[in-house]
């Protein structure tokens, strides 16, 4: 199963660069990054090449950090691909609480990261629909 690292940060300049530098120095690659902004603070979600190590390093650096399972869906990088999968999830009554994506190879492959309410059922449903969900190893070796 794929996982995302979430870091709590105050909304002030330099926080992202600080975190990115720490991960960079430790040879950890950031595949994707998003921020949930709540005004005075934000949550930075990171898909890292080595989430376990990213989590431990940031924890040691004093950050409040958590690691949560997410679903990584491999998709075609073409118009309508996102609509296909989200329509399917909607029909299956899977509620998405957060979603973001990144391209692996332009015009070829992309990855959609999903946070959902009912994780186990969602993964089953997605697989049942013929979509490929990425394992932890697959995400590391992208």
């Amino acid at each position, binding site marked *: 199963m794929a996982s995302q690292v*979430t870091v*709590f*940060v*105050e909304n002030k300049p330099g926080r992202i660069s600080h975190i990115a530098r720490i991960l960079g120095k430790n040879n950890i690659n950031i595949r994707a990054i998003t921020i*949930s902004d*709540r005004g*005075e*603070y934000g*949550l930075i979600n990171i898909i890292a090449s080595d989430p376990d190590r990213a989590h431990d390093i940031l*924890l040691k650096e*004093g*950050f*409040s*950090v*958590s*690691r*949560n399972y997410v679903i990584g869906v491999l998709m075609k990088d073409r118009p309508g691909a996102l609509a296909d999968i989200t329509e399917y999830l909607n029909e299956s009554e899977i509620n998405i609480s957060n979603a973001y994506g990144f391209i692996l190879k332009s015009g070829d492959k992309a990855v959609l990261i999903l946070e959902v309410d009912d994780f186990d059922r969602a993964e089953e449903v997605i697989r049942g629909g013929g979509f490929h969900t990425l394992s932890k190893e697959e995400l590391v070796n992208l």
Partner: protein
Amino acid sequence: MDEAYWDKEIETIDRHSLQQLQLERLNKTLERASKSQYYKRRIPAKINNLTALKDIPFTTKSDLRNSFPEGMLAVSRDEIVRLHASSGTTGRATVIYHTKRDIDNWTDLVARSMYMTGVRKSDVFQNMMGYGLFTGGLGLHYGSERLGALIIPASSGNSKRQIRLMKDFHSTVVHITPSYALHLYTLFQEKGIDPKNDLDLRIAFLGAEPHSEETKLRLENLFGLDAYNSYGLSEMNGPGVAFECQLKDGMHVWEDSYILEIIDPDTGEGLSDGEEGEIVFTTLKREGMPIIRYRTGDIAQTYPEECPCGRTHRKISRIKGRTDDMLIVKGVNVYPMQIEKVLMDIPEVDNNYLIEIETVDYLDSLNIKVEVRQNIFHGGIKELESLKKRISEDLKNETLISPRITLVEPNSLPKSEGKAVRVVDKRDRDV
């Protein structure tokens, strides 16, 4: 010709007669108070002169709290018609009980005070203080009715409505906290209202918050009115204990109703006129709950010279400070311990907080900073937002003030080593 006094005989009584009246009323007070649980073994039955008062022990706020709920009640509960209460640091309130005559006497003092500043029957008085357990709302309300002015019981908040009431009914007198008055002024500017020309305001009672002379003058200039400082505390009824006359140089304490002493807060020794110390009051007319030698915790001085207005009751200066760490936030009395107790009861917060009081848009703002420590962070926004809500609600319940909660990164607040500074008052003193 307009009569200058509400009660000329009492207001201009000569000092000697006033002292005789005080002694007479003090002895009645001692007699009444001795019927209460608290005072019965603490006070003499009678004293022969006022100087003997200094041998009677002080009453403190904690004495009031410890005698909760009825330890100081001096009459049967059936005689009590109203109570007022303030929130207390230990979760226990301080309760003051009033008989019908107590309310009547209080009302008369408020009417006398308002009349002294120039309020008359023809005035329209918009009372913008909170009604309820807080004494500022109801106290001025009944005083104004007694005086015969038209009262608009607007209570606090809802600025748009306040402005509409002022315009629709041509309010001439307002009772307002200085910070709220400044806040209203910014709204006037947004709406293009010039209070000097577009409104009929002529008198403002600035209450519930200590404020500087500069703030008062600024408000007078901005609004084009006369602002009067006043002083009161719920233990001594509330408003109507001391009020400025039209000369606006010190507040007359109604000495027919209260014995005023200024003491050295450290030794308890009495101080002379002109010396700065803690204000101590004894009620002279209270039936339901007489209080003897009450230490207010407020620091001020009396004026030695007579007032040219003709009133013989001594004047006190502005309150210069407190003998304890009590804070006044948005007009509400709060002790840091009260806030800390609430915060420490929330497991996620524990010892991990900083209390900041700031001035935002002229208004007091209570801001609680809490570190999102590693052990309480599980990655969810919902969790963090519900923590904020919980802290805010718990504090509102205890202190009546809604704080702003700011979540900050771990290890960003001052470390708690021994007695860490957990309260930072960053308010502009001279807004």
